[in-house]
């Protein structure tokens, strides 16, 4: 029984995969892909920070 549960914990939620497939904007995809780990909210927020810094520092 433990194995079944562990597999579910490690695999990304089905609805997130489905939602990701519905997105076309690569930035939105990155944000949703970051929604994982022990603190998905923090991970998503940190990804947005990274995206914004990349936008600031990238060369034209």
């Amino acid at each position, binding site marked *: *029984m*433990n194995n*079944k*549960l562990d597999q*579910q*914990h490690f695999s990304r*939620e089905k*609805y*997130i995969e*489905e*939602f990701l497939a*519905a*997105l076309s*904007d690569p*930035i*939105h995809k990155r*944000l*949703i892909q970051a*929604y994982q780990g022990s603190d*998905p*909210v923090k991970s*998503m*927020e*940190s990804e*947005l*920070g990274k*995206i*914004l*810094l990349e*936008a*600031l520092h990238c060369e*034209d």
Partner: protein
Amino acid sequence: MKIKNITIQGFRGFNEQRNIEFHNSLTLIYAPNSYGKTSISEALEWLIYGKTSKVEKTDSKEEYKGSYRNLHLPDSLKPFVKVIFIDDSGNEIEFRGDLSNDEEIKRSVNGQEVDSWPLTQEISKVPRPFILQHALKYLLLVRPDERFQGFAHLLGLEKLDYFQRNVVSLCTKPDTCIPAEINQVFKNISALEARLESQTSLIKIEKAIKKGIAGFGEAYEAVLSECWKRVPPETKQDSILAQLLKIREDAVAKIFRGHIALPDYSGKEKYSNAEDERYFFATIADPFVKGYMELLALATVQHILDRAEFFDLGIKLLDMIPDKCPFCGRPIDESLTKHVHDVHKALAVQKGHNEILQKQRTETSDLIAELKSRILAYQSRHKNKATQFLALEPTLGKLKAILVPKHQTHFKAIETSLKELIIVMNNMESSYGKVIEMIAKVETSVSESKEDSALVKVFGEALTRYVSDARSYAQVISEKAPAISDAAQVFKHELDFLAGTEDISVLIDLLDQKHNVKKKFEIERILESLKDLRKTIDQYVANKVLEAISNELTSDVMEWYSQIKTTGDPDVHFAGFDMERTKKGELKARRVQIKAKSYGKELVSAVSSLSESKLNALGLCVSIASNLKGDSPFDFLIIDDPIQSWDAEHEIQFIEVIRRLVERGKQIILMSHNQKWIDMVRSHCRTINGRVYEIAGYTEIGPHIAELPWDKWKERLKQVDAIIKDQTASSIKLQQAEEEIRFVNEELTSEIYFKIKGVKISPKNLNAARVRKMLVECGVENSLVDRITQTFETTDIAHHASEEYAAHRQRIQRYHAWAHELANLLDNP
């Protein structure tokens, strides 16, 4: 999974340990209000989810702090809830939850600690097997968003709901995720835009800038065009900025020379400072002091080296004239010659230490040199930060004339910052001088082999003081930098105003900040796009929930709702679920609609139109329907006080619902404060032969729980009498009568045993052998014991008829008579 039993200690209303055994189909628990009935469902809920829904839904977690632990439980005991579950294969599994001091649950399965319950489905994804009155209230009579959450909870879509809320929160409030560096860029560009707005000559640029990224190209064409107007015609395009800067500098220099700037330490500088300080203290603490002290120890061997040299010479001379002293020429004997050789050998060994001494001296000198070099760099880094700013001191009078009275605050900021900085700078310079002086002394002591332990101590103290002063200096800079930055901006604008260079200054900044202007627009576009992400997730989740509620939930709920509906009900009823829509037909986010009809006409909402009793019925049906859906690991359903605000007819209708749930394989644990209704359930579900408990009292040690017989044997016998007398009774009725006789005999045996032996044995699952043994022990006549045990032959232990079974009226009549005979013993033992 069904529940075999539960043991509760020190949790909520339970103080002393209590155990309750559950029937695999139906268990009824009657208790007057406040007798701890709900604590049973809460204990189960807490065990499974780690929190009760009451605590989960409260706005004030503080109010519920410490509420899990029973107040009267002795300090030496720990609260726990233990449940034996029976899985689909009939195996028993013990789930135990211990309440920790920090109000968390510690889980163990069959005695082994676990992080989560080993279930085949994630429990947050399946409906909670609890139907609680307060939960129904949270489901229907709440704000739309809370109702949506309630439905998501019920449909096992909690994670989807949580996911949506988190994504929406990010999309609507991304500000907290914007790094400080970007906020600073935004602030600078916004200030530049404000200055641009005040320059009427630059209106074309302003209009283009307002278009955002779309107007960026147009804006910078206009910037260039305005620049050309202000620089000499021969200026080349790549020199425009330099030319503008020169024009401005020349103009403002007539009013003021100098710059107001006090930049804070960059991240890199802060890192370098911290690294240097770490190096200083680590070096002082270990390699330097250790090396220096070793030099001190090694210095004592110098005289040995001198002596060894003397003996080297002596041995050489002795080799030439072995029997005479090489220095005075007097004769020496063999033993003295041996002694001289031995001393020479010993000195040769000690001489090896000289090499170590030299090596150590070089290493210590290198270390001092490196330390000195880093101290110089450290000092230079700090000093350079404020050099330009401190140079303003002689010009304070001029600054005041320009800034005061209009910008008094900014002038004050400059003035006080200067004063404070001069103090901390002087402190730092002074302690720096002391450190440099000490380094010089240490260097000399090493080079002249005059090491001194006191010198090391003073050096260490000087370095500590210096770092402390440097930190104070850095702190003042960091504190003052933002105010000085603001003052510098204001001063720059005042200078431009006085020099008539405001437009040129704006153009300079627009050229200088071109990259950041573009980046600001790009970042704004990213942030703006989050609105689209929000819309997408709202629609996605709304569709998911709509799918769940309209496709299956509506028809399922309708099926159960029609079970509770009575014929006398006015035709105002629940008519299905939907999601609210906008005028354009798009699904509204997080808005579950509960539809209702009155005599065929659609009402605005069931919540506002249905009576409380109907809403109660609807809430129950939603919970039941969602619990029967999907692949839940739980085959039980806890129903707590379901019939509030119902009339007698609805109460009876709901008993049928319970019966049907049992038929569908659910293990029902039903609790109510209504004794009469519990008796009705027992009576209507007599053949289920479940378990019934009464919480007869409540004191500080907890509830007093007593198990009652499912059915009184007299009632059963009366029913059998009626069936036997009915000559038209079908074979099914006769079979039922025969089964009832078995229950009667079990209950009678249990009661006789209690009366004679004083020991209470549950009548549940007694078999022929046990009944025989108990009756014999009670001294019942053998022939009656034989006859009574004979009644067990035609039905198996589960009271089911065997394949060859055929109802036989005469046999049942005989059994019936024997049961009466046994019953008589209760009155006349």
